[in-house]
């Protein structure tokens, strides 16, 4: 091999080594940086976007939709992270998983700013108002109302946004305002259920049947599968609360008839069936998630509770 060829192959070998060394150390360094990232992320986690929505709209020119999509993904990640944190904390404390409408760890300043940014850049992005109507009231009810009102203003053809508004008011116990929101929505659609909901809101806003109807409609109208799942969970919760009420009445009837609590579900199975509950062949009534209820017998009396494995939200 000539001297020239040897020099060339040595140079190539050196370059390959430099490439491997450079790439290898960059991977190792990235891992080290990632280890330090959580602390940094915690600091940045609750930092609201510093660009005002109006300026962002000017800067993005005709590409507001794409930037809104970016902030939408950021919002989902932010809420998802907070939901996970809260779920971990509640599971450790022996409680049920956190739900979308009960995330207290969300920083309202960050979430409101993000949602304002998205809806200013793309006012027709209706899924965002739907999401805000569910997540935001737990931390800032007034901001949630203002956002959905703005959504209604920007989307006068989207009648179901009135339902989102009614939901926020209903959750706050302001049944008259909820009824008003339903009425405003009813004027925009031929569907009569909104008018019926308005009437029921006015007469018995706190009725569990109203809650059931509300969540059923939210489930039907939801664009996002996460919101659909949340509405389904809430429906299970409402149904389970009603079932537990019936079970307690059955147990009270048995205690007054026999003078003592039933020792097992099998002793109450016939009465539970007669009350219209779904009862397992072994005797226990079944909750909406398909898990048997647990009979709690103490010196003070008997009660019913959810099984640990049940996925019915515990409120």
């Amino acid at each position, binding site marked *: 091999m000539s001297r020239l060829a040897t020099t060339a192959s040595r140079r190539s070998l050196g370059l390959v080594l430099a490439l491997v060394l450079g790439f290898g150390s960059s991977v190792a360094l990235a891992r080290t940086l990632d280890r330090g990232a959580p602390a940094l992320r915690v600091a940045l986690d609750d930092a609201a976007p510093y660009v005002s929505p109006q300026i962002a709209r*000017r800067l993005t*020119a*005709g*590409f*507001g*939709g*794409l930037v*809104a*999509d970016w902030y*939408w*993904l950021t919002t*989902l990640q932010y809420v998802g992270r907070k939901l996970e944190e809260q779920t971990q904390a509640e599971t450790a404390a022996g409680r049920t998983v956190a739900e979308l409408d009960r995330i207290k760890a969300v920083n309202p300043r960050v979430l409101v700013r993000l949602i304002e940014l998205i809806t200013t*850049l*793309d006012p*027709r*992005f209706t*899924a965002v108002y739907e*999401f805000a109507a569910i997540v935001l009231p737990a931390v800032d009810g007034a901001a949630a109302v203002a956002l959905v009102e703005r959504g209604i203003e920007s989307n006068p053809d989207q009648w179901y946004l009135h339902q989102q508004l009614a939901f926020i008011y209903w959750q706050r116990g302001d049944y008259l305002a909820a009824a008003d929101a339903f009425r405003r929505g009813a004027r925009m659609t031929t569907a009569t259920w909104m008018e019926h909901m308005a009437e029921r809101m006015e007469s018995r806003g706190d009725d569990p049947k109203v809650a059931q109807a509300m969540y059923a409609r939210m489930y039907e109208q939801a*664009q*996002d*599968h*996460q*919101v659909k799942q949340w509405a389904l969970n809430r429906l299970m919760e409402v149904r389970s609360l009603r079932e537990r009420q019936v079970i307690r009445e059955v147990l009270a009837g048995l205690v007054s008839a026999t003078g003592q609590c039933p020792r097992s579900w099998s002793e109450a199975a016939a009465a539970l069936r007669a009350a219209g509950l779904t009862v397992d062949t072994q005797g226990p009534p079944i909750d909406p998630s398909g898990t048997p209820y647990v009979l709690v017998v103490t010196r003070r009396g008997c009660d019913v509770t959810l099984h640990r494995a049940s996925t019915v939200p515990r409120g």
Partner: protein
Amino acid sequence: MHTLTTTHGVAAAGIPAARPVPSSRRRIVAIARNTFREAVRDRVLYNLVLFVLLLSVGAVFLGAASASQDAKIIVDFGLTATLLFGALIAIFVGVGLVWKEMERRTLYAIFAKPVGRTEFLLGKYLGLCVTLAVNLVVMGAGLTLVLLSIRALSTALALVLWSTVALIYLELTVLTGVALLFSAFSSPVFALFASLAVFLIGHFTADLKALATLFDAAAPRAALVALHHALPNLSTFVVITPAAHGVGPSADYMVTALAYAVAWDVALLAAAALAFARRDFK
């Protein structure tokens, strides 16, 4: 010496006759065809591979991450990418149209033939417009297929999508004119920066008019309004955000936008031809 030319172009006395000079239209078409071929040879259309890759990856991952908003995001993303890819091609290839011919000295060979400078510019412009049209049709088809694959495409959305692509194309023809104008009288680096500047400012010209209303004095107000009219309002052609919600431009809007683009194209090409006619190639 007399030469008798037959209809077959062969001299009766055996001396080869001069070929009949093709018409101006045919000369322009020949240059346009060559420009398109050159763009294909230069692998300009390779950007389509990157576009399809981006869309496919986007379609796969956005479904899971966007909370059922994948169709909206894909339309936003796909149309924005279509515009940006197209704009980069229009500007980068556009500024090189004249310069490359000068650099390779093929320009002298072209002008040695009976080709006018205006014909040369028009041919180059049309060639790049055809390249961009092919590019946009493939990108639009890719976007349509991705939406079909996630079962998010309706006839109404397809109509909105293609109307938006058509408006993007109109913007690109204006941008090509801008790039050609700058390259007709300046260096490629200057032409590149100036064209990019027009692309950016062109999307903000509506703000110039809004800014003018803030001034009480007539002079700055008139200056800003003049600047607003002196630059093409490219935001006219960008209706991507409403398109992602299935809201498309009306037929009236499309016709007006077409007329606006044609007006700018004519003005830019005329200015480019004027500048190019005075350019000294020595």
